[in-house]
């Protein structure tokens, strides 16, 4: 497979791992921001290739994982309404709210559908004029343009039966929160390649300078990640703290301007609570007043809905890089992908799910 196989090449990976080994002189802790990167690291066993001085922490960049319980509960409340067709990316269906998940609501007869794009939901709204079609708009800056496009199109077409339940979050405020934390353990970041493909790299400069931390925009394949780690370790060894771009084949400094314009047209910055972490000021995107008619939480009056999180779930610690999944007492016991306590065990990008799937090396002994 061209453009994929070369980034999974064993020889190239070993050469990079060797270069990291030669470069490093003391311990460094790096955080990969995106859950896609986490899965690649665990899936390919990249940490096994690294020298013992380099440790990796798994960051908060899993949109499914950071969606707060309250918003899942709102989704459940909306989906359960008669006349509603609730559309979501597949991952969200198994994320537990405070009492149940979307699959449970679906099994009781709710019309819950898995779609691959908000535009699929928009098409459903055209097909089903007598039903309220709601799309669950979760995600970072990567999914925001498509969601903005869907809403803008719905307004242009006057599709009154379409709305979105918004839980958008942004990366830079989360990095700021992690860097400002007194428990900070992170020496450098591998920033999320696809977020930067949309937003560019410019907003990371002030973060790197303020906290004197190297930030390397990195892609998702094993060779990419090892190259990102090499760039980051090199900066740390040389005392530099810059924004570097490993993913130059896709990411431009200015990002994708038309996508940014679309986001700016439909969304505005809002405070957002992150599941397991808590409120982070200015960390979310919400619909602008001009698009408030498409806000499902308002339309269905569920803004106040929402229960507490499971007390046993420590996903907040995992998402901030303070706890490794396998060090959680519930991991693989009370919490498994079939019976998840928190979203990090559900999502295809969740760190706990990655460890459960690829690294739970002694299932018989451990359980």
């Amino acid at each position, binding site marked *: *497979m061209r453009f*994929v196989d070369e980034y*999974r*090449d*064993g020889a190239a*990976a*070993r050469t990079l791992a060797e270069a990291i080994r030669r470069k490093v002189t003391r311990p460094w802790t790096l955080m990969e921001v995106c859950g896609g990167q986490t899965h690649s690291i*665990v*899936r*390919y*066993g*990249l940490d*096994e*290739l690294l020298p013992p001085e380099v440790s990796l922490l798994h960051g908060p960049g899993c949109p499914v994982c950071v969606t707060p319980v309250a918003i899942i509960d709102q989704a459940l409340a909306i989906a359960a309404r008669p006349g509603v067709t609730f559309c979501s990316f*597949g991952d969200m*269906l*198994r994320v537990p709210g405070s009492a149940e998940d979307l699959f449970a609501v679906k099994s009781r007869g709710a019309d819950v559908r*898995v779609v*691959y794009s908000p535009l699929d939901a928009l098409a459903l709204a055209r097909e089903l004029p007598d039903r309220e079609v709601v799309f669950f708009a979760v995600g970072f800056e990567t999914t925001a343009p498509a969601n903005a496009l869907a809403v803008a199109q719905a307004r242009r077409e006057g599709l009154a039966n379409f709305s979105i339940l918004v839980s958008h979050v942004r990366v830079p405020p989360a990095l700021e929160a992690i860097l400002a934390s007194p428990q900070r353990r992170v020496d450098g970041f591998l920033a999320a390649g696809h977020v930067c493909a949309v937003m560019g790299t410019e907003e990371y400069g002030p973060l790197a300078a303020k906290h004197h931390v190297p930030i390397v925009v990195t892609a998702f394949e*094993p060779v990419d990640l090892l190259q990102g780690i090499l760039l980051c370790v090199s900066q740390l060894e040389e005392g530099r703290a810059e924004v570097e771009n490993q993913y130059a084949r896709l990411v431009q400094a200015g990002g994708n301007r038309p996508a940014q314009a679309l986001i700016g047209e439909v969304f505005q910055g809002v405070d957002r609570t992150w599941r397991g972490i808590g409120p982070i000021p200015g960390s979310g995107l919400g619909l602008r007043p001009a698009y408030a008619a498409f806000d499902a939480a308002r339309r269905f009056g569920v803004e106040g809905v929402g229960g507490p999180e499971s007390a046993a779930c420590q996903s907040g610690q995992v998402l901030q890089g303070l706890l490794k999944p396998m060090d959680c007492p519930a991991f693989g016991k009370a919490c*498994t*992908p*079939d019976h998840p306590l928190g979203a990090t065990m559900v999502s*295809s990008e969740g760190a706990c*799910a990655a460890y*459960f*799937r*690829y*690294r*739970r*090396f*002694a*299932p*018989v*002994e451990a359980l």
Partner: protein
Amino acid sequence: MSPDPTALACPRPLRHDTVQLAHGGGGRLMKELIEGVFLPSLGTDPAGLHDSAVLEAGSGRLAFTTDGFVVHPRRFPGGDLGELAVYGTVNDLAMAGARPLALAAAFILEEGLPLEELAGLVASMKAAADRCGVRIVTGDTKVVDRGKGDGAFITTTGVGLVPAGVEVHPRRVRPGDAVLVTGDLGRHGIAVMSVREGLAFETPIASDCGPVHHLAAALLEAGLDVHCLRDPTRGGLASVLNEIAAAAGVAIEVREDAMPVDEAVATACEILGLDPLYVACEGRMVAFLPEAQAEQALALLRVHPEGAGAAIVGRVLEGPAGRVTLRTTLGTARLLDLLSGEQLPRIC
């Protein structure tokens, strides 16, 4: 050999174009369906129709299996529900080392199903059964109200003879066995998904839907010490390996770079976020036999077109019991776990 529905001439005109509730009612219309659609294709018992077929079995051990088929859509690139229902059960018999003897077919039809489509499915079944040298000797039809079914569901049940001395079972898998697959992985699941999801690829991906009983026979008749056979249907190769490792109390290690996966299937999986090792095949077999016999087995399999892509993909280790690991292209190892409730559409 592919069935041509238009070649199927009904001996008497049917009064309806679609399945009616009364087609399952036991009366005249049901007789018409049997005589107009099923018998012309599947043939009639020379001894006359009766509630059961009676088979000559000789002495020895019988293998006996059943499987329900609900694939949607009913026609997909490389196959259809009818042939899938035959090959699925024939292959299950073959995985016990059995030579397939006869099949039974039970149809659950939804009111309104076009009779022409039903005739096409039955013709497919007949062609598939002929290809496997097996007869469909008995059957049943029920019709459910419109909206209470999804067109057509077919359940096939099969019996086969297990030759003397053949003992093919997961418990015989032991450390030192090689793991072979008879061809590239994941075709069927991706072929069905691509139709369902309206995905168009530059190279259309055809299902591998087909028989493997002759591949099993090739290994057994050559006198190889075949320990276990399994067809990697739902859950794909990874699930089979996990089941076998648990049943045999062994560990299995497979190599990522040895896995035969078609370029188009690999690309589709990349786009859909699927791992081809978990995607269903419907015309592949996994074989466990002593490593010393692996090359000979490979040569025997590759003689057949259906085995041309055969490969040795891994080996069986002492333990820990139940653990399946994948050696990645980078040389690292990771768990190849059972899937946790990932939802895939109905594919068989």
